């Protein structure tokens, strides 16, 4: 299925793409990032140290690592919100789904999801229509008029994800999208996201501290070390979808990733 999504993703707008695999949608090469405390060099923090990662078009790359290993920094570099202090980030336009849903409390769900098209200049009715279509497709029908505070945490993340999709960028950067949810909701959301990505295939960089989530959702898992983050291991997840967390292959990969994190039993 992963192969299927890759062939179904010709670089948008380019006529007759060459049969050779295109350049990676995301390419992070030997990137370092240092948060300097001006005047106090002893206090500057090295967030990332020579991190190199690639994600091909349509690929789902999961990045796992302990808290504070620079995962969020990595996503902000990919989205162009920060500049690296060393190395190079080459990347198709990317949309960020932040850790917190950041839905605007004065807009209802569908208008929140339609924020990016509105900013791109689309009329309210047309933007609503586009968001509404995705709502129906992704199991959010009936929640269009709800305000964020009326939605559960899981529903809010779904709306936030639809908002990210509607940004119309080929790359999605998901920053611990389910980190704040309880275990049961998180499991539901993981299957939901897997389904959503099958319907709306994109290149995804998924940052998470949940190894199982990474193995369930990703084509490849990169394991980062504690700060400063470096790539410790890269595991290919060549398993058919949908995957169950109880599959022997999933469990085995999870063990490998945990060992790479230094948490192996």
């Amino acid at each position: 299925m992963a192969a299927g999504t890759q062939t179904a993703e010709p670089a948008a707008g380019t006529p007759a793409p060459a049969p050779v695999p295109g350049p990676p949608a995301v390419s992070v090469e030997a990137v370092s990032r240092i948060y300097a405390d001006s005047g106090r060099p002893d206090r500057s923090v090295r967030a990332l140290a020579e991190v190199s990662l690639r994600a091909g078009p349509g690929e789902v790359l999961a990045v796992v690592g302990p808290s504070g290993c620079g995962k969020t920094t990595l996503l902000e570099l990919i989205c162009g919100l920060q500049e690296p202090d060393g190395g190079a980030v080459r990347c198709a336009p990317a949309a960020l789904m932040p850790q917190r849903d950041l839905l605007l409390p004065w807009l209802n769900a569908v208008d929140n999801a339609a924020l990016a098209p509105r900013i791109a200049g689309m009329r309210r009715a047309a933007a609503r229509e586009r968001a509404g279509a995705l709502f129906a497709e992704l199991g959010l029908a009936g929640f269009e008029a709800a305000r964020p505070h009326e939605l559960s945490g899981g529903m809010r993340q779904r709306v936030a994800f639809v908002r990210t999709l509607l940004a119309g960028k080929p790359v999605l950067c998901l920053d611990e999208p389910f980190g704040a949810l309880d275990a049961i909701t998180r499991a539901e959301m993981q299957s939901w996201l897997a389904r959503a990505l099958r319907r709306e295939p994109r290149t995804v960089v998924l940052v998470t501290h949940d190894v199982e989530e990474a193995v369930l959702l990703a084509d490849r898992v990169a394991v980062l070390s504690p700060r400063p983050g470096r790539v410790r291991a890269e595991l290919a997840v060549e398993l058919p979808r949908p995957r169950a967390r109880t599959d022997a292959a999933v469990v085995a990969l999870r063990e490998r990733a945990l060992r790479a994190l230094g948490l192996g039993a």
Partner: protein
Amino acid sequence: MRRHLGYTLRCARRVLPAFLVALGALGVWELYVDLGGVNSALLPAPHEIATELWRNGALLWTNFAITAEEVVLGLLLALVGGFLLGVAIHLSPLLRRGIYPHAVGSQAVPIAVISPLLVFWWGFGVFPKLFVIALICFFPVVVTTVDALAAVDPEQLKLLRTFDASRWQVFRFAELPAAMPAAISGARIALAVGVIGAYIAETSTATTGPYAGLGREIVTDLNVLATARAYAAATVLFAFAVACFYALTLAERRLVPQTNPPRGARP
């Protein structure tokens, strides 16, 4: 019929506490004056004030109309001007540095110092008064607007940047609606100050003609020891301030129906 009764009861429950407080205060006041605690030229008893209210209805109404016009127009000026200035200060660091300190300082200017100039510019009409009211009232609007615009979640702004939002769009989609509730709180403070602002405006600027608003009326009455009538005029001002305040509360429900969810609603 039954529903109507329920509605009446709910309204009564809302108004009752304020009504009881007023009743209690008036009772104590009446007893204090009647039992000879104070000369009624200094503090008239409530029943004397009520009599004056009744007897001078036409006079008070005419003066009230003048004062109400000043308050409404002056406040409008203050709200619009204060909000626009707050937005401008938020958008331009240069304006913040250049204007904000002077806006603060403007609150310390004694009106009597500038009122001759205002009269020189604009004569005996309504404009000097509007200026004074606006000067007194615009400041809380500026401060609350500036602070609320600056308090918008930086993560939110970052998100909008990933959607390639322009500065104007960031303002229009995130900052402005997020700042509305606080700006309206500023407007509330301005409203409460607006009525006393009208008093200051009327008493510090010149006027011609027999009717010059409730503030003038109060000063004139006090000069001729018609204290009860002065209190009657003050009562009208009091009621007007309360009415303005609640009118804005009603308007707020229309203006910001979205009002931010109750804090703590996030799980």
